[in-house]
């Protein structure tokens, strides 16, 4: 089968798949096509759409490829999808952020970070399939653990969880000029006094204060 025919089949598959379709899946379906070649064909298709000024483009999300309308047509598509628009409140986004970076995480842990109750928000995220129950923590009460879903990756246009924006380090949030510089680490082999560690305030990594 010639390359052009393969490309058209790939196009049909990406269009007709009910969810993002991976290069491996394309290779499995299209005769004589390797996964890396499938990825190359997808890239070519994307370039064709760009050159032809099509209203859609190919996205790589949740480990696969998906055809999506271009953002400039959003207002029209929103009119079309008026009955159930995607609306994510700040509460929903903050809760999702904690779940995404801390997963698997309990409700109490999310509440500790946000300082508010999150019961209703988590229920709504579960309903929208952005969050799932990922078992129980084996502590008294066996609280449920929550994690993000594949749907979460799709909605936020992420290939995988590692594509999440980096969470800033605590140190970066502190004012730039700290009066004290961090003590240099003790040289290897130096006897570290365990009593020092025990004196550390609390179990949580509290930022340094001056």
């Amino acid at each position, binding site marked *: 089968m010639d390359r052009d025919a393969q490309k058209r089949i790939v196009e049909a598959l990406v269009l007709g798949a*009910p969810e993002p379709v991976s290069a491996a899946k394309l290779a499995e379906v299209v005769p004589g096509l390797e996964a890396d070649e499938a990825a190359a064909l997808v890239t070519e298709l994307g370039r064709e759409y760009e050159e032809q000024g099509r209203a859609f483009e190919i996205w790589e999300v949740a480990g696969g490829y998906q055809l999506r309308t271009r953002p400039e047509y959003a207002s029209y598509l929103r009119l079309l999808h008026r009955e159930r628009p995607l609306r994510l409140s700040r509460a929903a986004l903050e809760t999702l952020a904690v779940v995404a970076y801390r997963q698997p995480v309990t409700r109490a842990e999310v509440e500790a970070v946000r300082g508010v109750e999150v019961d209703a928000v988590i229920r709504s995220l579960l309903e929208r399939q952005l969050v799932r129950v990922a078992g129980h923590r084996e502590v008294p009460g066996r609280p449920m653990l929550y994690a993000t879903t594949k749907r979460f990756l799709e909605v936020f246009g992420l290939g995988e969880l590692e594509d999440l924006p980096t969470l800033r380090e605590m140190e970066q949030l502190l004012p730039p000029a700290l009066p004290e510089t961090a003590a240099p680490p003790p040289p290897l082999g130096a006897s570290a006094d365990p009593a020092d560690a025990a004196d550390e305030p609390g179990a949580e990594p509290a930022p340094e204060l001056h």
Partner: protein
Amino acid sequence: MNETFPTAAEARLGGGVAANACAIKLQVFEGPLDLLLHLIRSNEVDVTDLPIAEIARQYGEYVSLMHELDLDVAGEYLLMAATLAWIKSRMLLPPSAESEDSELDPRAELVARLLEYQRFKEVAEQLGDRTLEGRDVFAAQAPGAEPSPDEERPLAVSLVALLDAFRRVLEKAGAKGRHEVTGELVSVRERMRVVMDMLGRFESIEFERIFELELGRPLTRPLLIATFLGVLELVRLAAVRVYQGLDEAGVPRGTIRLRRAEGPSADDWSAAVAEVT
């Protein structure tokens, strides 16, 4: 009425705006930590060296304002007010040499929480600014036309949908069920047999049809409820699987269908049914 809120907090909320405008503005805070971060930012103070007395005062003003506006002040706000008061009192105490944690700044834990919250608040904003599927871009997705057993989802996910569907069944049967006086005995076990019989005859059945297929028997509420409980029990026994098609957004939607589960659990269902009490 614009002049009825002379507090400093009100002034910061935008001066002489109407009370309900304040209410709307207040609601933008996602809780006490968010409110505190706002106060820190608007006072341009260093988060690690909080002027706790001043921040506590302004925080208190906001909370009283919320009360004045008859807003339902969540307990979290009051808890934080108490925490601030506690820290403030601790700051007034002279550092005591005997106290074990005399080195520890009483604000430390709060500062750590604020910074932690700020990190997540930032990424939450970044997430919201992304190009979202379903809001900014829309996927071309073929609907999963006839869901195959491979796409079956665990019941837990769609229990809400199942209950909704059952409520529709009850509503439809409403008039017939309401004035039922004769005490008809319906057993869940018997209903389970009926459902399994139906599923033996059809590959899959729409959930709502389960309640209609039996001819010549009035659809009473006890009968419907027993049937529903029977379905749940069969799912628990893994004799039946309940699933739902996916809409274009990949969310289960539309008709809920029942299918006889494959494997030994389905063959053993009658034994299992017999054990149901």
